[in-house]
Each structure stands twice: as structure tokens, then as C-alpha cells.
């Protein structure tokens, strides 16, 4: 690790945000570099000063009691509303409820009778486009951030176990540096409400995200799509479905997809 990289990694190392392999590399550099050692000691001194000397503000009892009371009041209110209603329901309410129920039941029966295949189809199409939208959004979010990766590593043996520790999924990680697609690292991102591993590659100036998706997630993802000059291409990563999002042109993207298939 050269001095410049080490300097950039120093706060990450200090804050425990560097993965194991990169930490080891950094420590190797530290053995040789007095400047980095001094900088690290400086950060540690500052932390010690802050933790020892800065006052710890604990919530005053009065505030604690206030919040306790509010929480208790809210809990009892949300319990008592249905209780009070069921206690003595006005007669008209029962009438309205019965007609409403009949109406709803009729509606359900009608929609069932109309047949489910059509409904299922209309529900599925938005799910697919929603997934595509999420993937594009995640990619753009990552581009807007200063660093598109949570774990910086060009070593696939580092990236894979890092994911395993974070999301319990260990995707197949391959590096195509020789073919011009360099593994930069990985991150965890949200697709809908699911946390998914993302492998990050770089090709020239292009950043490539490979989202590793849950089984059956790509079933309703269109073959490939494009939005604002960015492309989305579903593929399979070993036996897991995945999707590539990037701003590379179609030819380069195809080359990249072929590498995964090989």
C-alpha cells in the first residue's frame, strides 16, 4: 500500500470501517511509516480527550418521566379506542357496518368471479418496473455518494466473506481485471426493503453495479431496459439471479455479461 492510499485509509482504519485484508495491508504500511503512526496516535489522543473530558449528558429525570408518561398515555389510548367502541356501539353503526360488509363481500365475490389470472398479471408488471426503478435509483444514489463502495477491495477473497458477515449471502465474486473490468469492492444496498449485496466494478470511467438479487426476483424483471442513458441487464451469477446497472454502452455491457457466463 503506497503512502497516499494509506493516508486515505487511515481514518477508516481508525474507525473500524476497513475490512480485514485492507487493515492488514494498512498495518504493514504502518510498520514502515512514521508519519502514519504519528497521525494515528494523534487521532487516538483526540478520541481519548473527547471520551475522557467531554461531559456525558444523561437525560434528566424530569425528561425521562415526561417521555415515560407520554409513551404510557399513547399506549393506553391506542388500546382504549377499540375497547370503548365495542363497549356500546350505537345502533346506526351496526346498520352501516352490515350494509358495508355486504357491499364489500359482494365486491370480493365479483372480483373473484372476474377471474384472478388477469389481476395477477396487472399486479406483476408494476412489480417488475418497480424493481427496475429501485435498481436504477440505487445505482444513482451510489454515484452521488463520494464512495460507491462500503468495502474497498480488489481482492475477491475479501469481498465474498465481507458480504457473508453482513447479509448472510455470499455471492460469487469474480474479478475481470485482466479483461479491463476491475473489481473495486462491494456495498450493501436496498432494493425495495430488501438488503442486497452489490458488487462494484470499474471499466475505464464507467462504474458498474452488479446487484445480487433474491431467488425469483428477476422473474418479473424485463429482459433489459434503459433509463437516462443507463442500462439494466439481468443475468445469473452462479445460481443466483442478478442485475447489472451501468452507463457503459451496449457493446461493452455485452462483453461484461459474456465474462460472467464464461
Amino acid at each position, binding site marked *: 500500500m503506497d503512502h497516499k492510499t494509506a493516508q486515505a485509509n487511515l481514518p477508516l482504519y481508525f*474507525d473500524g470501517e476497513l475490512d480485514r485484508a485492507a487493515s492488514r495491508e494498512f498495518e504493514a504500511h504502518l510498520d514502515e511509516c512514521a508519519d502514519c503512526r504519528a497521525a494515528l496516535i494523534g487521532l487516538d489522543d*483526540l478520541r481519548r480527550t473527547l471520551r475522557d473530558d*467531554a461531559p456525558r449528558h444523561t437525560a434528566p429525570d424530569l425528561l425521562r418521566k415526561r417521555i415515560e408518561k407520554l409513551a404510557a398515555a399513547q399506549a393506553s389510548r391506542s388500546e382504549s379506542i377499540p375497547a370503548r367502541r365495542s363497549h356500546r356501539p350505537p345502533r346506526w353503526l351496526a346498520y352501516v357496518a352490515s350494509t358495508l360488509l355486504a357491499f364489500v363481500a359482494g365486491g370480493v365475490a365479483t372480483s373473484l368471479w372476474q377471474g384472478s389470472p388477469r389481476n395477477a398479471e396487472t399486479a406483476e408488471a408494476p412489480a417488475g418496473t418497480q424493481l427496475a426503478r429501485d435498481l436504477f435509483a440505487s445505482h444513482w444514489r451510489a454515484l452521488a*455518494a463520494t464512495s460507491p463502495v462500503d468495502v474497498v477491495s480488489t481482492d475477491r477473497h475479501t469481498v465474498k466473506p465481507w458480504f457473508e458477515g453482513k447479509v448472510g449471502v455470499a455471492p460469487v465474486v469474480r474479478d475481470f481485471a485482466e479483461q479491463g473490468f476491475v473489481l473495486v469492492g462491494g456495498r450493501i444496498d436496498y432494493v425495495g426493503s430488501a438488503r442486497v449485496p452489490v458488487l462494484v466494478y470499474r471499466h475505464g470511467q464507467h462504474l458498474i453495479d452488479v446487484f445480487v438479487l433474491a431467488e425469483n426476483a428477476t422473474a418479473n424483471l424485463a429482459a433489459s431496459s434503459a433509463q437516462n442513458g443507463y442500462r439494466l441487464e439481468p443475468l445469473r451469477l452462479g445460481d443466483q439471479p442478478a442485475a447489472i446497472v451501468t452507463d457503459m454502452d451496449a457493446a461493452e455491457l455485452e462483453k461484461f455479461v459474456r465474462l460472467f457466463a464464461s
Partner: protein
Amino acid sequence: MTAAASQDFVGELAQRHLDAAYSLGRWLLGNEHDAADAVHDAFLRATKSADTYAGGNARAWWLAIVRNCCLARLDTRSRDRRNVSIDDTTGGSDRAEQLLPHSEAGDVEDRIDHAQRQALIVHHLNNLPIEFREALILREIEELSYREIAEVLQTPIGTVMSRLARGRALLQKALAGTAAGKVTHGP
């Protein structure tokens, strides 16, 4: 989540992280009264928007609400100058100097007791621009991860990193400045 369950969730969450919330309030607003009121506001807001909690780090979600309530208070405070009542320490910029004993550098460390060191660090922290102060507090005192801080501050992780770096450098410089001051005050 049902309404009742989400109320319970917020109540439990707020009480578990009440110290962290109050501490953040103190560092942002400076005094006990405003900090307690901001936490109170935050609790009400959290119970109202409990349905919007979309999973993820609950503590970061709660602290983000607390922070927003603090910033709202700071905003009204700056519009209404009569209410400026930041803690004891930001009173005068020469205060840190007053706290330092004028004696040989050798026994300076022994002479500054805990209260004085505390006043010194509070003084320097409060002198930092708020965006650096809050990042430092969340990292060093509350020990949040970069990602959690990013969630609280609603900024990208890269911004968190640069603010931390800048905040640390500024604070180191300020502390070194008073340390150097100590020596020159000697005989």
C-alpha cells in the same frame, strides 16, 4: 405494523436511546431546557411518523428525528435573538485562556483538574461549526458507524467522512493552540 404496535415501538425506542437523544440535543442546542424540549418534540413527531419507519437502523432513525427537531429549534432561535442562551462556555472567547494556569509547562497537566479540561473541550467543540461538531459527537461520543451517522445526518457516507476529517483536524488544531498557549504563558 399496527398503530398500537408502532406506538409501543417508538416508546420503547425513545426510552432506550433517551440519553443519546438528549446528549445530541445538548451538543446542538447548548442548554438543558432546549435539549429536553427538542427530545420531547422528537418523541411526538416519531410517534406520528412511526408508520414511515421503513426498517433499518432504529436508533439512527430516532436520532435523525431528534436532530431535525434540534435544527428546527436552532432556526427559530436565530430568528428570535432574545432566546440566545447557549451553555456557560460559549460566553467569551477568552474564557479558555482564563482557565489555563500560568505556570511551568511541567506541572500544567497536574494543575488542570478535570473540570477545567472539560470546560476546555466543551469550549472548543462549541466553537466548531455545527456540521463538524455533530459528526464528531456521533462518532466519538455516541460511537455510531459511518453508515449510521449518514442516516442521522441524511448525507452520503462520503460527506460524513470528510466532515469527520475536517472536524478532527480543526479540533486538534484548536487543542494544540491552547497547549502552545500554555507554554508561552510560562516564565
